[in-house]
């Protein structure tokens, strides 16, 4: 993984010093509240319901065991002993003290981490495929490009005061595991007809109040033009994006209002002027790629016989392997998910002792690296099949082996009303209820892959509009209600869910979800027919009839 050089380290150290000084000036009354607000946001600090919330960047989801231990230390020392992994592969602390936040940032800087630009109207953390480098369907490893983008976006002087936040995602495989079509800019590594690898560039995707699927602005961009093209898009957005209404300020609205054709013309005209001055050299790309060379895999890993024996003899292990591990491009290896979706735990949360323990497991079995996923789980990406059984036992003991990855209880969920000052409704409590209602693992596994996304308000942090089943908390005269959508997807078949009907009351939402799953179970042509395929085939009416008939 990428290791900081002297420039990277100096920059984040200087940033810590800068923010410490700004916070001191604020606490002394020398900086106005609203001015300080914009400065703290660009250092990842929100003021939430109970306390400030600190969002730490997880660059394209890649973490080292050392970094995980530092997160554990911060959770223990400055917070209430846990942290939360987000849909953009970042890490949140819910209870730090404002005056201590510069100290936390200083601690992070010692392990090459920061919270720079994790909030505010600026360029945010670049996200990517959590299986990058190990998946079987990869065209090119996206991580070197992610790191190049991370550096380019960090402290970019021109784009720190954009109309609104701006998110970039890069995917390097045929399957989109980074929700790229719902980002301000989505980049797909693709091969053109001559075999050259470049980028297919999507623009104007987004979630939130107005979900929009990104459109292709350039089918093939040469690698050397990556940064100049990003700069051209950003400059056009900075100059022409709406600033009169915060809900219409994202680039998706600019693209929609101008039309893709006109927007593309503006970008291409800008790009024509700057592209020769901002070329990415082949040498720079190769130097970056050298940071992501494969670890020293054991070439005899596939010879192991114990793995198949354990699979035959232990049904629980086999179930876990089936649901919580993924194919690896190297024979004898698999990628193992660490499920942060145990039924009785808020989705995406991890305690300090779990963080420490997973760091140890990463050191023992997975070259000391951990990835965080868009669906709020972790991955140990390089596990020898001979080690899977022991790993499973250890994860199980840590309460991190619930075999539910990709199932209806692998719910993406925002912190909701319990923590967030924006939320209209609770989400964590309902998620627990849904888990309790779906406690029959066999039924859950029989239902197969179903993605439920649950946001406590229409800002849509949990991407409910692209959930196969989406749940959105709404407030009606001080009472919590829940809007259901069906048929959304953030993968290659990107789609925005259709609204089922009127919002459902809090005491009825869990039953409504159970009903939807039952309708699917009865209506599907075979167990091979995925939930989304059934919804596409029969439409939402059969679901509407059942949900509103019984509730």
């Amino acid at each position: 993984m990428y290791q900081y050089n002297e420039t990277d380290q100096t920059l984040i150290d200087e940033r810590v010093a800068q923010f410490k000084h700004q916070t001191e000036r604020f606490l002394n009354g020398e900086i106005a509240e609203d001015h300080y607000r914009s400065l703290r946001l660009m250092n990842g600090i929100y003021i939430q319901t109970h306390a400030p919330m600190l969002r730490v960047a997880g660059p394209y989801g890649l973490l080292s065991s050392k970094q995980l231990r530092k997160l554990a230390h911060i959770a223990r020392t400055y917070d209430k002993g846990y942290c939360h992994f987000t849909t953009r592969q970042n890490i949140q602390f819910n209870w730090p003290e404002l005056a201590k936040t510069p100290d936390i940032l200083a601690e992070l800087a010692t392990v090459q981490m920061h919270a720079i630009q994790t909030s505010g109207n600026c360029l945010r953390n670049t996200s990517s495929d959590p299986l990058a480098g190990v998946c079987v369907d990869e065209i090119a490893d996206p991580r070197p490009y992610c790191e190049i983008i991370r550096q380019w976006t960090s402290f970019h002087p021109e784009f720190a005061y954009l109309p609104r936040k701006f998110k970039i995602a890069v995917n390097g495989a045929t399957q989109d595991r980074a929700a790229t079509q719902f980002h301000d800019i989505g980049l797909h590594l693709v091969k053109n007809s001559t075999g050259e690898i470049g980028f297919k560039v999507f623009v104007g995707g987004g979630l939130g109040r107005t979900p929009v699927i990104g459109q292709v602005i350039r089918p093939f961009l040469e690698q050397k033009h990556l940064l100049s093209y990003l700069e051209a898009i950003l400059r056009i957005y900075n100059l022409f994006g709406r600033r009169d209404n915060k809900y219409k300020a994202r680039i998706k609205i600019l693209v929609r209002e101008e039309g893709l054709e006109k927007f593309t013309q503006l970008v291409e005209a800008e790009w024509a002027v700057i592209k020769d001055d901002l070329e990415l050299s082949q040498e720079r790309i190769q130097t970056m790629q050298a940071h992501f060379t494969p670890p020293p895999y054991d070439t005899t890993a596939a010879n192991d016989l114990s793995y198949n024996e354990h699979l035959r003899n232990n049904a629980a292990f086999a179930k876990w392997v089936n649901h919580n591990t993924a194919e690896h491009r190297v024979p004898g290896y698999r990628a193992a998910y660490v499920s942060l979706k145990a039924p009785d735990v808020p989705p995406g949360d991890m305690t300090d002792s779990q963080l420490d323990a997973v760091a140890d497991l990463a050191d023992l079995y997975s070259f000391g690296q951990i990835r965080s996923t868009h669906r709020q789980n972790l991955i140990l990406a390089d596990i020898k099949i001979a080690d899977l059984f022991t790993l499973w036992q250890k994860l199980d003991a840590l309460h991190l082996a619930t075999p539910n990855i990709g199932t209806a209880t692998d719910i993406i969920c925002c912190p909701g009303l319990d923590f967030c000052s924006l939320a209209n409704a609770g989400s964590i409590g309902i998620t627990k209820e849904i888990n309790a209602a779906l406690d029959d693992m066999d039924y859950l596994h029989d239902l197969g892959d179903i993605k439920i996304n649950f946001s406590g308000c229409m800002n849509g942090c949990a991407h409910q509009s692209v959930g196969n089943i989406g749940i959105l908390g709404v407030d009606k005269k001080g009472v919590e209600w829940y809007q259901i959508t069906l048929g959304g997807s953030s993968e290659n078949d990107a789609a925005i869910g259709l609204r089922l009907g009127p919002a459902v009351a809090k005491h009825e939402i869990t039953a409504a979800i159970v009903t939807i799953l039952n309708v699917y179970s009865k209506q599907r042509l075979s167990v091979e027919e995925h939930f989304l395929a059934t919804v596409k085939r029969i439409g939402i009416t059969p679901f509407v009839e059942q949900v509103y008939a019984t509730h």
Partner: protein
Amino acid sequence: MQLIKDQKIIDDQQQFIADDQPLPSQGDITVSVARWKKDREQLLKMPGKLGVRLSPTDAPEDITHDLNVLALIEVDFPLYTDGRGFSHARRLRGYHHYQGEIRAVGNFMPDQVFYLSRVGVNAFQLPDVQQLPTALSTLNDFSRSYQ
């Protein structure tokens, strides 16, 4: 009026003449883009330092053919959150190769001065002169850069 220019606090006599004010007969004068277009000939005959003020909605391209006669271009920030001025400055320096003074004016924060300097602004007229020493010190916040 005190401001920061080329990393020093200096006294400066530049005066912005609003569109509805008559042009004075002398002095260092800045006008809006609209006024520049309207009174260009008269302004060019004046002896002092001439400047044009760009608002966020103006485009540097409106004045690029006059860059050689403008001693300064003011980039106005009606709100500190409006970052269009950063792109204006970048365009003026980057591909219009403007060599004169680019001055940030209006409602910006001392804590924005470093990034402004990185996009080519070299003079800073802050809303509160007491903030000048702080702003000056922030110019040394970072010793490296990625871009």
